[in-house]
């Protein structure tokens, strides 16, 4: 009981938006900051795994915003935080979708970003006490 209270007290310290931003930039980091090690590790493994498979399938990383679909794809990709930024800097991902699996890869990357946003918001809810 006392250990649980200490954990909650430690999780309640610091800037209130830190878990949200950390969770967005690095998958699972928001939960790690709140000492939810198991949840953070599973989230990190899922999102990094999904993103990595998307890249391995030669999925496309959205770069421009020429039409509404590209804008939506870019928003989804940006949800991956530093993964997306580093991948763009390293030139990973395909510019054009050539094969069917590359189309799957593109969806994997976008959905990994959206899942990361959900996880970051979950970390924020844990921090504010909205969720236990």
């Amino acid at each position, binding site marked *: 009981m006392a250990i649980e209270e200490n954990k909650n007290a430690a999780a309640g310290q610091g800037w209130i938006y830190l878990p949200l931003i950390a969770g967005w930039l690095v998958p699972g980091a928001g939960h790690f900051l709140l000492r939810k090690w198991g949840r953070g590790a*599973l989230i990190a493994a899922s999102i990094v795994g*999904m993103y990595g498979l998307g890249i391995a399938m030669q999925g496309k990383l959205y770069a421009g915003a020429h039409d509404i679909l590209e804008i939506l794809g870019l928003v989804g990709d940006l949800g991956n935080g530093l993964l997306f930024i580093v991948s763009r800097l390293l030139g990973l991902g395909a510019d054009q979708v050539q094969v069917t699996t590359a189309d799957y890869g593109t969806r994997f990357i976008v959905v990994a970003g959206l899942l990361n946003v959900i996880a970051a918001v*979950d970390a924020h809810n844990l921090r504010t006490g909205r969720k236990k």
Partner: protein
Amino acid sequence: MFHPSHFAAVVLFALFASVVFGITQRETPRRMVHYGIYCFVLFVGAAVVLSWLMFLIAR
């Protein structure tokens, strides 16, 4: 490079999405596991049912 079959891609997608859904949408570990399994079955089941439906329509 990685070139999974359609079904393997569905299973991988369902697995990763279900883990995140389970953790974020429920509060206790037991309910997280149950909800994750529920989402996984729905993802894969829906893909299989819709695939058969499209196969029958296309015939």
